[in-house]
């Protein structure tokens, strides 16, 4: 076969595959936007739901999701980053540490409903936190830990070995070396993992189903021990459990959830860009 032709066919196949991935995503976005945009208004965003969720706003669900994401990040990022530092910088390369690393990678593939059940067993029942923001945040936090540990590990491992050697040769201790010449250069990568975790924590329904989410609670949570509404669960409820919800309210809710995740991601991406601009090698 002619080389030029071969080249064209290969190119077309690759292009087609990319198109097949991108187009459905665009279609989803367009449908959600077209059907949901009419529901968006300041009232929709900042009011309580009324009349059995058929009218009013979704403010408690928005706020609830923000609380849950924030709680999950506060819990999972320090824990995940610190354990990644231990795994990369301190633990010796032996059978045990390899099993631990493998287990962490595999934990990322555990279905989210299993994390939900785990959270129910540990936080809600055993530790007695009840169905609360605390239980939900911790459950989501545990769910995103593997993502954060794995990407933090990759970020730490990608920092050139020479940075550590130079630092040690200048008389820095191991911890000073990590603190001053490894961690700052790994931050962009660690933030990437945090972004991924963030998006996942905001969108998951199953882990919050048993641990925090309220079906219909038209008031704002007062403490971390309160239940709250949350966007993904609210979307599930109004789409399948309650008849008579206007279509634009359902799509509007989906649109808000989508935008919330995008805004959170954007903030993290801007932050990461700022770090990258400063540190380059």
């Amino acid at each position, binding site marked *: 076969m002619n080389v030029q032709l071969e080249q064209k066919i290969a190119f077309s196949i690759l292009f087609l595959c990319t198109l097949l991935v991108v187009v459905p995503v665009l279609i989803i976005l367009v449908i959600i936007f077209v059907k949901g945009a009419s529901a968006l208004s300041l009232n929709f965003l900042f009011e309580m739901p009324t009349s059995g969720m058929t009218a009013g706003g979704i403010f408690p669900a928005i706020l609830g999701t923000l609380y849950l994401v924030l709680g999950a990040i506060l819990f999972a990022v320090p824990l995940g980053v610190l354990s990644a530092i231990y795994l990369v910088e301190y633990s010796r390369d032996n059978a045990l540490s390899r099993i631990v690393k493998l287990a962490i990678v595999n934990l990322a593939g555990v279905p989210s409903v299993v994390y939900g059940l785990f959270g129910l067993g540990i936080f809600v029942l055993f530790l007695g936190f009840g169905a609360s923001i605390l239980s939900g945040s911790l459950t989501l936090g545990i769910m995103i830990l593997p993502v954060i540990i794995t990407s933090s590990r990759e970020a730490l491992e990608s920092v050139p070995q*020479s940075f550590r*050697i*130079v630092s*040690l040769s*200048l008389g*820095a201790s191991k911890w*000073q070396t990590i603190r001053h010449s490894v961690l700052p250069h790994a931050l962009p990568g660690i933030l990437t993992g945090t972004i991924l975790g963030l998006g996942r924590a905001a969108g998951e329904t199953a882990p919050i189903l048993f641990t925090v989410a309220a079906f219909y609670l038209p008031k704002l949570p007062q403490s971390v021990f309160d239940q709250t509404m949350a966007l993904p669960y609210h979307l599930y409820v109004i789409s399948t459990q309650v008849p008579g919800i206007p279509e634009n309210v359902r799509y509007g809710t989906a649109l808000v959830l989508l935008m919330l995740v995008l805004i959170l991601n954007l903030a993290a991406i801007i932050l990461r860009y700022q770090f990258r601009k400063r540190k380059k*090698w």
Partner: protein
Amino acid sequence: MNTFVIETKHLDLFYDSFQALTDINLNIEEKKITALIGPSGCGKSTLLRVFNRMNDLIDGVRITGDVNVLGDNIFTPETDLIALRQKIGMVFQRPNPFPLSVYENIAFGLKIHRNQSKKEFTDIVKESLKSVILWDDLKDRLDNSALKLSLEQQQRLCIARVLTMKPQIILMDEPCSALDPIATLRIEELMQELKKNYTIVIVTHNMQQAARASDNTAFLYLGELVEYGETKHIYSSPKEKRTEDYLTGRFG
């Protein structure tokens, strides 16, 4: 009359079961430049890394014998590695500044040990850059990224970074191997300047460099110290056949 800042006695070094250094007895004179030469894999870099214990980072390294640095045995359980490495600076094969500004690179060690005030910081940075003859070039560019400098400037910067620690000994592991011949000569000039205040031990692949720039030369071959003495004697009348063969280019 001669003061020795590094003394090794019956030094053996093993990587697991492989013996990389055998019975090394070497005394390094103060404020002289000592070159370690020999073919690849002869153990010269390994020996250099014994002096500031950088071999500790490699798993499976085992050392027997005595190594005294500035009068103290450095292989005791009480040895303070942090203090040791402040007294012995190291310059590496590839210039390896951090991806930070010129100023931050130089101030790195000071920041870690933080026993100076901000004012002293600036003075020490300036003084160190002057010692490596970079101050005039870089005084207006202290905020620029160190990675934008030429390789020679980067290597000078790395030497300046070591000088801020006020070391007594500077170890150099093939410091010119990434540089062009002109830059190499200029670094050698700098070494002559530095030896007024510091003891320098340099590992080099370049026999001419050792001949030009060093006072004493140690020839290592297959982990053994074959011959050690004043550079001019080693080069004009080597006692050992193996030294002569290496220097005349018959192997290596």
